[in-house]
C-alpha cells in the first residue's frame, strides 16, 4: 500500500530524515512514536507531500508520490490528514467544512455531499452541530469534525499528526474513540502519537523513530515489553 524507500529530508543544513525505508500494508494501523525532533511528523508530512523529500521514493497505491509527473492533488484526495491543531476552516460551518472538498475535488453535488456529511456527523456524535462555526466547539469536538472532514473524501489512507496533543486531557478519549472505529472500515492508518494506550489497543505495528531514522519496529507487545535497542528502552521508560 505505502512503500517508502531511503527517504531523506533536510531543512537547510538540518537533516531531519536520514534514510527511512518501510512498507505499510493495506488496512494496517501503524503507530509512529519517538522523542520530539525525531522526525516522525516530517515523515508523516512527506507521505502526502506537505513536505517535499530531499531524496528517496514514496509509492502509495502503486503511484509514486515523489515522481514530479504525478498529479499530487489526485493522490492527496485518497490520503486524508488530521492535524495537531485541527485546522478547521473558521469561516465555514461544520457542515461546510465537511462538504467543501467532496464538492470541489470529487465533484459531488451539494445534496450528496451533505448526505455524506450528516452520516459522518452522526457517527462522531455531532449531528446537532452541523450549522455552527468551529470556534464554538471544544477542542475535542473540533478534532472529531476534522476527522469527519478528512473521511468525507473517502480516503484509503488516513494520516494523523499528533491528533490529541493539543487537547485538554479530558477530551483525548472522545477523539481516540472515533479513531479506534476506523480500522473496522478498512482504512489504512499512520498515526504519530504519544498515546501508548491507543498504540497497544489499535496498532498493528509500532515504529520507533529517533534522529531521523527508524530505530526499531514491531508489534506493540514486542516494542513495549521487549524493546531491543537502548534508545527505545530509554524513551519508553520516560513515557510509560
Amino acid at each position, binding site marked *: 500500500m505505502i512503500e517508502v524507500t531511503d527517504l531523506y529530508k533536510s531543512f537547510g543544513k538540518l537533516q531531519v530524515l536520514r534514510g527511512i525505508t518501510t512498507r505499510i500494508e493495506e488496512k494496517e494501523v501503524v503507530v509512529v512514536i519517538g522523542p520530539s525532533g525525531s522526525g516522525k511528523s516530517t515523515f508523516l508530512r512527506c507521505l502526502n507531500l506537505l513536505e517535499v523529500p530531499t531524496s528517496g521514493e514514496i509509492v502509495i497505491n502503486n503511484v509514486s508520490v515523489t515522481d514530479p509527473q504525478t498529479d499530487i*492533488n489526485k493522490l492527496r*484526495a485518497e490520503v486524508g490528514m488530521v*492535524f495537531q491543531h485541527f485546522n478547521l476552516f473558521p469561516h465555514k460551518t461544520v457542515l461546510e467544512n465537511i462538504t467543501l*472538498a467532496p464538492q*470541489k475535488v470529487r465533484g459531488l453535488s451539494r445534496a450528496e455531499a451533505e448526505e455524506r456529511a450528516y452520516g459522518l456527523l452522526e457517527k462522531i456524535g455531532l449531528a446537532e452541530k452541523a450549522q455552527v462555526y468551529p470556534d*464554538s466547539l471544544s477542542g475535542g469536538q473540533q478534532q472529531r469534525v476534522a476527522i469527519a472532514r478528512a473521511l468525507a473524501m473517502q480516503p484509503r489512507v488516513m494520516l494523523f499528526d499528533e491528533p490529541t496533543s493539543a487537547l485538554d486531557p479530558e477530551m483525548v478519549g472522545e477523539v481516540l474513540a472515533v479513531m479506534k472505529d476506523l480500522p473496522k472500515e478498512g482504512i489504512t492508518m499512520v498515526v504519530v502519537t504519544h498515546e501508548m494506550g491507543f498504540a497497544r489497543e489499535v496498532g498493528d505495528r509500532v515504529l520507533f523513530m529517533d534522529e531521523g531514522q527508524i530505530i526499531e519496529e514491531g508489534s506493540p507487545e514486542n516494542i513495549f515489553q521487549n524493546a531491543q535497542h537502548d534508545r527505545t528502552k530509554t524513551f519508553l521508560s520516560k513515557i510509560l
Partner: protein
Amino acid sequence: MFIKALPYLFTGAVYTIWITAIAVSLGVIIGVFMGMARISGNIILRGFARVYIDCIRGTPLLVQILIIYIGLPNLLHILTGNQMPINVYVAGIAACGLNSGAYVAEIVRAGIQSIARGQTEAARSLGMTQAQTMRYIILPQAIKRVIPPLGNEFIAMLKDTSLLSVIGVEELTRKGQLFIAVTYAPFPVYLGILLIYLAMTLSISQLVAYAERRLAVSDRSN
C-alpha cells in the same frame, strides 16, 4: 465668502470622490494580483511584483502624476513623431490607480500571509488545488483582515488626489484654487476645502468601522 464657496467646492468634492473610488478600485484589482504575485512560487512573477511595488512606493506620487501626464506624451512624441496628449482625467486616475495598486498589493500580501499555514495545508491535504485553496479558504479569510487597512488606503488616496490639482484636474483642491483666483479670499476657501476633506475622511472611517462590525458578526452567527 466661506458659505458662498461651499456649493462650488462641493462640485469639486464630487470629482474627488469619483477619482478616488475609481483609482482605489483599479488599485484593488492591481493589488490583488500583485499581492499574490509577490508571494507566488514563480520567480519571474515575484520579481516583477517586487520591482513594481518598490518603484511605486519609493517615489513620490506627484512625480508619478507628472511623468504620466507630461512625460509619457513627450516620450511618445520622441518615439513616433506624433503629438499624443493624454486626457488629464485618464492620466490622473491612471497615476493614482497604479500608485494605489502598490500599496494594496502589500496589504493583500500581509492579509494572505496572516492566514495560518495550517489552513493551506488542510485544504491541500484534502486534494484541493492551489487556486481552489486561495479562492475558498485563504481569500475569504484574508478579506476580513484586509478591510481596515484598505479603508486607510482609501482615505490616504482621497487626500492624495489633491495632488492632481497640479495638472489641472478639477477636483476639490483645484476648484478651491480657481475660486480663490476670482475672489482673492484664500483663508475661508482653504478652510472650506480642509473641512470638506475632513468630513469625507471621517465618513469613510465610519463606513469601514461599520463594515468591520458586520463582517465580525457573520463570523459568529449560527
